[in-house]
């Protein structure tokens, strides 16, 4: 319990956060990559040397500048339509950030209150919710996502919606499980004896104790979101054609692989690095917290 | 009565801490003697007990001193040699019987395994001996109990089984670490009484570790009061309570709530 309390306290102050970062190589590394991603994504229009959709057909299939045939103007080369890969990569980061952050916030907004209510109130409400969750989880998530896209159409916001629909159960189950433990502790009984209503107890006693766990699940959710977006965009079911996304870049890159393998390798590498880093960050946070916290699914 | 165990200037430290958890502890235990290690939580008494068995937690290390058992320094033995001693010459009784017994095995299996290993008894002999031991600790229907799993027995029963196991190989020394804390007061009296009887019958020495000074007063021959890793006072029991010297002992005695005078027979009885 002690480490959980300290962890929560650390999240509250800047000095605390810095101490947290310094405490674990995993956390530091994961956070650094995440930070780089977010900064790139947010400042994309300023960082990106070219318009990602600007086509220079005469200068297609250029390799990265360090290889022969490369050009310092296009540091990472160009794709089949002469679009600058670096610029597309940077804007792809925006997509990744937007999708992962929004999807995570939305799944948390659904899963956390539901998980808390379910775990705290128990009884028929809990049974009903868990039944829905169980049934929902028996569908392959990617299938759910694809089905939704085919109904609603493509586009970045529909991708987010698809992720939320496919994965809201994650937060729900994990939070509920933790709440089942928390509700047995004496301070919850104490709150009851003072006269707080169940709603007040869930909001003020239970929720703050679940926040550290939420941050861990959030990193996991973000990596899931990015994965799904990349997969959908790769399949052409993701973002619209003019939006540069790492997924669509990979799909494109595959088609002209012979002419410039880097068109596919670079966005693939970026995706892998980000997902790995998020998982490492999550691991580091979990280790730092309490070894008994296990994540399902 | 010769000296069975001599702990000399024992020092134990945990990883990441800058002071010793056990800091220069010395005491002896004679044959057929119950030696009490008494103190509050954090005093270092449990760790001292575990070090005699050389069963420290992974982040603890013995950084000084000797533990002489029958003249041999236990700290100089190899793990293999130590294993021959553990469970046979020196055994342990822990606080929580349910966690010391393996929940996946019946009592019979656990007892028979130990007897086979340490005494070389064959299956049927071992089982008969187990029944005898259970009878000795006052367990009714021992054959039935042998077939049960630990969770099917009450705390008091389990603790008695633990005592039976601890004494079954006729050890010279038993380390009892808070053996009655998890028990109700009436069962505690039964268990303590039992331990006294075993000591008399088998001439076994016991290191009795507890935070309950009153309990130690009634079972131990000698008591060492521990505080923050050191022994502050060590005397034969009667002397300790008649004329305690160290301020900490005095403070402890002061703070121990005394039940006081009370009748222990009812007026409705014979």
């Amino acid at each position, binding site marked *: *319990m*002690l480490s*959980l*309390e*300290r962890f*929560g*306290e650390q999240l509250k102050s800047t000095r605390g956060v810095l101490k947290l970062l310094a405490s674990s190589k995993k956390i530091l590394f994961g956070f650094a990559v995440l930070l780089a991603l977010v900064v790139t994504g947010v400042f994309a229009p300023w960082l990106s040397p070219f318009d990602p959709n600007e086509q220079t057909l005469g200068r297609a299939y250029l390799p990265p500048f360090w290889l022969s045939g490369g050009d310092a103007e296009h540091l990472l080369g160009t794709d089949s339509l002469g679009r600058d890969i670096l610029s597309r990569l940077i804007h792809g980061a925006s997509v990744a950030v937007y999708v992962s952050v929004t999807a995570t916030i939305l799944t948390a907004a659904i899963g956390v209150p539901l998980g808390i209510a379910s775990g705290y109130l128990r009884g028929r409400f809990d049974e009903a919710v868990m039944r829905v969750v169980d049934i929902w989880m028996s569908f392959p998530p990617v299938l759910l996502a694809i089905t939704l896209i085919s109904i609603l159409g493509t586009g970045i916001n529909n991708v987010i919606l698809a992720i939320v629909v496919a994965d809201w159960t994650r937060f729900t189950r994990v939070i509920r499980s933790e709440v089942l433990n928390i509700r047995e*502790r*004496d*301070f919850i*009984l*104490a709150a009851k*004896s*003072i*006269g*707080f209503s169940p709603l007040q107890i869930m909001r*003020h*006693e239970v929720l*703050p*104790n679940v926040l550290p766990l939420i941050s861990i699940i959030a990193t996991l959710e973000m990596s899931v979101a990015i994965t799904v977006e990349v997969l959908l965009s790769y399949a052409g079911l993701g973002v619209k054609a003019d939006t540069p996304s790492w997924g669509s870049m990979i799909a494109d890159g595959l088609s002209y692989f012979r002419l410039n393998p880097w068109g596919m390798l670079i966005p693939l590498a970026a995706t892998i690095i980000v997902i790995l880093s998020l998982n490492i960050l999550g691991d580091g946070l979990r280790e730092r917290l309490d070894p008994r916290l296990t994540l399902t699914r | 009565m010769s000296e069975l165990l001599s702990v000399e200037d024992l020092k134990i430290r945990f990883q990441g801490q800058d002071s010793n958890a056990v800091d220069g502890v010395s005491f002896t235990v004679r044959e057929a003697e119950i030696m009490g290690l008494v103190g*509050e939580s954090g005093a270092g008494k449990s760790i001292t007990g575990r070090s005699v068995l050389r069963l420290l937690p992974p982040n603890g290390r013995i950084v000084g001193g000797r533990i002489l058992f029958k003249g041999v320094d236990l700290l100089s033995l190899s793990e293999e040699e130590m294993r021959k001693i553990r469970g046979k010459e020196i055994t342990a009784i822990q606080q929580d019987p349910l966690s010391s017994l393996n929940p996946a095995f019946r009592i019979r299996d656990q007892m028979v395994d130990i007897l086979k290993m340490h005494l070389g008894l064959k299956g049927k002999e071992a089982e008969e001996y187990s029944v005898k031991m259970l009878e000795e600790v006052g367990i009714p229907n021992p054959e039935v109990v042998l077939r049960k799993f630990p969770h099917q027995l*009450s*705390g*008091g*029963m389990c603790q008695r089984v633990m005592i039976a196991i601890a004494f079954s190989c006729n050890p010279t020394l038993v380390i009892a670490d808070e053996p009655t804390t998890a028990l*109700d*007061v*009436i*069962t*505690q*009296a*039964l268990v303590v*009484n039992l331990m006294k009887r075993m000591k008399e019958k088998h001439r076994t020495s016991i290191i009795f570790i507890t*935070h*309950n*000074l*009153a*309990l130690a*007063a*009634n*079972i131990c021959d000698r008591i060492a009061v521990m505080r923050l890793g050191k022994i502050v006072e060590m005397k034969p029991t009667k002397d300790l*309570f008649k004329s305690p010297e160290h301020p900490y002992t005095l403070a*402890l*005695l*002061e*703070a*121990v*709530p*005394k*039940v*006081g005078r*009370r*009748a*222990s*027979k*009812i*007026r*409705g*009885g*014979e």
Partner: protein
Amino acid sequence: MSSIIEAQRLQKFFIESTGRLADLLLRRKRILRAVDNVDISVPRNQTVGVVGESGCGKSTLGRTIIRLYEPDGGRIIFKNVDITHLRGEDLKKHRRFMQIVFQNPYSSLNPRQKIRDIIKRPLDLHGFDDSLRLVYEALESVGLPKEYAERYPHQLSGGERQRVALARAIALKPELVVADEVTSSVDVSIQAQILKLLKKLQEEFKLSYLFISHDLSVVRTISQKIAVMYLGKVVEEAQTEALFEDPMHPYTAALFASIPDVDTPWEPHLLKGEASSLYSVTKGCRFQPRCPYAKQICAEEEPPLKEYSKDHKVACWLYER
């Protein structure tokens, strides 16, 4: 009425599965009669001790009597009001006056709240003005410095946390405080401090206590009246000194004899049989399997709790003529 709270024929059951497959299929459950027809009352400005061993139901009694657990039968009269079936706002009105302090100082305070909020929020809930000042007053009453208000529970020691739990309870200016094994999880030296504090607070705020503990020595120093519980029932109840001088129930006597003491010689009654549990309650008197004085009738009928001398009740066939 001179009692602040009174329980009449109070019952609390827990229903569990038996762990046997046949019962699972037949939907047969096991009923734990944790509190089984208990009558108990706490006079104003006094302390009633409830003693017994783990599993006897004393903690359950303490929690049920303040409606923390829902009673399954009987009545609870608090300040002359029948609160047994009150709900919502009606119950909340009364909650302020009946508080509880728990055994474990490590789990009874919300680790994510500052001490200040732990004490202040209940005050705000019940509409106290100037709640921050009351927080400091409460901290002062329990002997903690004002600065502690800004700390988190994990920064305090076990004894200090227990004081915070007390401060939280008394800040609401209750009339009844249930102390549920409040000294059992702290070191002996801290125990003495807590007891002293409890007595002081009782004087200062005219509190009534229901003091639950398995430790007879502690209960003796603080209670005016003691109830002895065994497997869900009160087997004896008397004024403190009368109980110690003249125990009537065989269980009480066995309890007294079994406690090791520094000053007095130890002659425990070595009772036969096993310490029973709520899972194996027998017909008739629950103590009968272990009782050295058991008669025929003890195995057939439960003895009622009756008053045999002034203020001294016992449930035992030995005294029924």
